[in-house]
């Protein structure tokens, strides 16, 4: 693959950075700016990011985070597949079926184990 084949990726990279910078600076320029300590904390309603590393925190958050990654990756796999599903045809369907089967097994497992219940 020649280097110019990567041109769309380069364009994407440029556009994504441009939009990101634009959004940050436009809101700073035109929006009202009244900071207070609560609002300027990195996570407005999350845990404090600075402090002693060794302290107790509910392990449930980690469970949620792990489950999030799982389904996040599912989406990452599904989107390109959905775009190309016509070209991939039956083969793509079978491959996705295998992926979905493994995912479902994991999902049933976590459900039955009570990982989805908060209390």
């Amino acid at each position, binding site marked *: 693959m020649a280097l110019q084949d990567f041109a769309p990726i380069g364009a994407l990279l440029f556009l994504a950075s441009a939009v990101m910078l634009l959004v940050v600076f436009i809101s700073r320029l035109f929006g009202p700016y009244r900071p207070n300590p609560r609002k300027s904390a990195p996570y407005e309603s999350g845990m404090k990011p600075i402090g002693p590393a060794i302290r107790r925190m509910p392990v449930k958050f980690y469970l949620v985070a792990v489950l999030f990654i799982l389904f996040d990756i599912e989406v990452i796999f599904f989107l390109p597949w959905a775009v190309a599903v016509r070209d*991939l045809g039956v083969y*793509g369907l*079978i491959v996705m079926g295998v992926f979905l089967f*493994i995912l479902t*097994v994991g999902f*049933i*497992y976590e459900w*039955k184990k009570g990982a989805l219940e908060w209390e």
Partner: protein
Amino acid sequence: MLFEVPSLESLNLGVTLPAVSLAFGVCVLLLADLLLVPKDRKEITAWLAVAGVAVSFVLNLFTFNNTDNEAFLGMFVADSFTGFMNIVILLTAFLGILLSKDYLKRAGIERGEYYTLMLMSAAGMMFMASANDLVVVFIALELLSIPLYVLAAFRVPDVKSEESGMKYFILGAFSSAFFVYGAALVYGATGTTSLPAIFNAVGTLAESGGSSAFLLLAGAGLILVGLGFKVAVVPFHMWTPDVYEGAPTPVTAFMSVGAKAGGFAALLRIMAMSLPAFTLADGQTFAAWQQTFWIIAALTLILGNLVAIAQSNIKRMLAYSSIAHAGYILMAVAASGTIGLTDEATRAALIYLLAYMFTNLGAFGVALAVERDDGSGTNLNDFVGLAKNRPGLALMMAVFMLSLTGIPLTGGFIGKWFVFKATLDAGLVALAIIGVLTSVVSAFYYVRVIVNMYLRDGEAETPGETQMVNWAVYIAGAGTLIMGIFPFLVTGLSDLVTVAASVVR
């Protein structure tokens, strides 16, 4: 469209059945254990797991030595090497399950996930034995390792077990990163991740020389670090004693054999198959990595055997002994770097692995019988007087110890015989001498166990001796002895093994 959508026929899924059926069996087992098996009857899960292993074993016999053996467009190969490796891996899983069943109940950690994880790891080992592409090797490596991390920490809240799992996880993740980095460099040098294609690219690279050849060597070195960690060879062995000591004993037994089998399968395939000779010295052709393996093998043999002498805990002793045995197999890997000897050396490594599998699982089985419910009782002194109380177990332990030393009429002797022969044929005389000398040293600490059992007075207890453990120990003992007395049974099988690169050539 950038690529052609493959048809189902071109995937050739038939030859992947042994490994895929085990992976599918894992999913079924997980659900069956969750939905059908009652909480107090986890032995049903164990038997289901055995059934999964048996199905895979039968399928493996069907695909053994298949001629049309490439699947998934050449990423997966099921040749006779794979077939032989699968036999070793599936027997390991089978004996591992037998050893685990009653142990889990005694230790109070009887959870159905145990068997799922064990089979998952075994499936990863089988994919490792079939992998014909660096990406597949990596996925198989992770599938092999991640369940083992969990299994090592399975005895929570036991502190040692937790420490063992944590250590294994952090260092294991580190070594995986090394492997990926190495694979990336090899890809950078050759432009492909497929092992046969790398093989073809290496020849032209060697002629042109320059930075690409250096990149290839650096990549091969990093791959060696990643896989060397898994099989516990010397510069990368630090984790072994702690992890082996802390993990539940059947898990230690399983991973001391299984992880080694998987790691060496990949090591043999990558090194012997796709990175062939490109150095000429003294009119003899050998692979550029042979020197490295020579040194690592020698270090592994010396350190493993010498440090094992100082151990007073049977699990730690067997951990160092497993390092030493990785060194013997590494001798065969080094020998496979000499052109024309690849097949012979590969066969030697396979036979050694089979013998080591029976012997080591059996030795851990006896250690498990002596161990108490709370995990203590793994000291060498706990074996004192075993011959009087449990003559059968003591006799088996004696056989295993002699086999690990390499005394004739045991499987260990046959394995060592072939490995030393391959090493000598490859012209690595000094390495063979180191191997023989360290074998003599190893007799010291192996025989000490026999002395404890037979010659010292005492009352050894075997709280862990159950029907199932006895079976596993006697099966392993029978395997060790049959291999030792009728070696042609095994060599007949291994003679079929040729490394796929020689077909490509």
